[in-house]
C-alpha cells in the first residue's frame, strides 16, 4: 500500500476522524485487533497533543498525519506547526501525573519506537513506529 497523508484542522472534533482512518488503514495492513487498538490510541494521543499545543499557541495551521507502511513496520508521523516549547509547562508537583505525562506514558508503551523532532520552521514532528513482527527483546 502506498503512503497516505491526512490533514486535519487543529481542532478537537477532528481527532476522531484520524482514528477512523487509521483503523481502516491498519486493518488493510493485517494488524490484529490489539495492535490496531494500540496504534489508534497512540496516534490519537499524538494528534491530541498537537491539537492542544496548536490551541495554546493560537495556531490555525493544519495537523498532518503521514502513514508509511513497509513490509516490516508501519511508521506514522504527526506534524504540527505550533510555535514554542509545549514541554516547558511543568507539573505542579502533584503525585498524580499531568495529562501530558499520562499521554507520553501511553505513547511510550503502545508503540515500538517513538521520536520527536523540532522543526526549523516551527512546530514538531512525532514519529511512531509499530513493527509488524513481534519485537525482539
Amino acid at each position, binding site marked *: 500500500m502506498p503512503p497516505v497523508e491526512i490533514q486535519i484542522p487543529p481542532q*478537537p472534533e477532528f481527532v*476522531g476522524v484520524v*482514528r477512523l482512518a487509521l483503523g481502516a488503514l491498519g486493518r488493510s495492513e493485517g494488524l490484529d485487533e490489539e495492535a490496531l487498538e494500540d496504534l489508534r490510541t497512540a496516534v490519537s494521543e499524538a494528534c491530541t497533543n498537537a491539537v492542544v499545543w496548536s490551541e495554546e499557541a493560537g495556531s490555525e495551521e493544519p495537523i498532518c498525519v503521514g502513514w508509511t507502511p513497509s513490509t516490516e513496520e508501519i511508521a506514522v508521523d504527526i506534524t504540527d506547526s505550533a510555535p514554542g516549547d509545549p514541554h516547558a509547562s511543568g507539573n505542579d508537583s502533584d503525585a498524580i501525573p499531568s495529562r501530558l505525562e499520562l499521554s507520553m506514558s*501511553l505513547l511510550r508503551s503502545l508503540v515500538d519506537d517513538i521520536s520527536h523532532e523540532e522543526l526549523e520552521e516551527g512546530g514538531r514532528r512525532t514519529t511512531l513506529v509499530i513493527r509488524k513482527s513481534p519485537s525482539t527483546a
Partner: protein
Amino acid sequence: MELGLDVRQVDDHSVVDVKGEIDVYTAPKLREKLIELVSEGSYDVVVNLEGVDFLDSTGLGVLVGALKRVKAHDGSLSLVCTQDKILKIFKITGLTKVFPIHDSVDEATSSSE
C-alpha cells in the same frame, strides 16, 4: 461523535453511565457532568465505563480531576470497567493504583472504598 451520559442514583451513590468515545473532543462533556454532580452535593460517584469504546489521556485527566474534587469533600470516586482495552490504559499509566475499579455497578456501590 457524541458521548452519552446518564446519571442514576444507586443507594447513596451517583452512577454515571458513559457511552461512546472519551477523547479530547468529548471529555469536556464528562468533565462538566462530574463537576455538576459535585456542586449539587454528590460526593460518592461511580463512573460506569462499560459502554466506553475509547479512552485517552484527556479522559483520564477528567477522571483524575473528578477524584480530586470528591476527595476534597471526603467523598469517593470509583470506576466500573471489565473491558481489557480500557483497563490497559489504566494499567499502563499506573492509575489502577489510584482508582478503585470494579466489575459491576453493584460491586462498586456496595464497596466501602
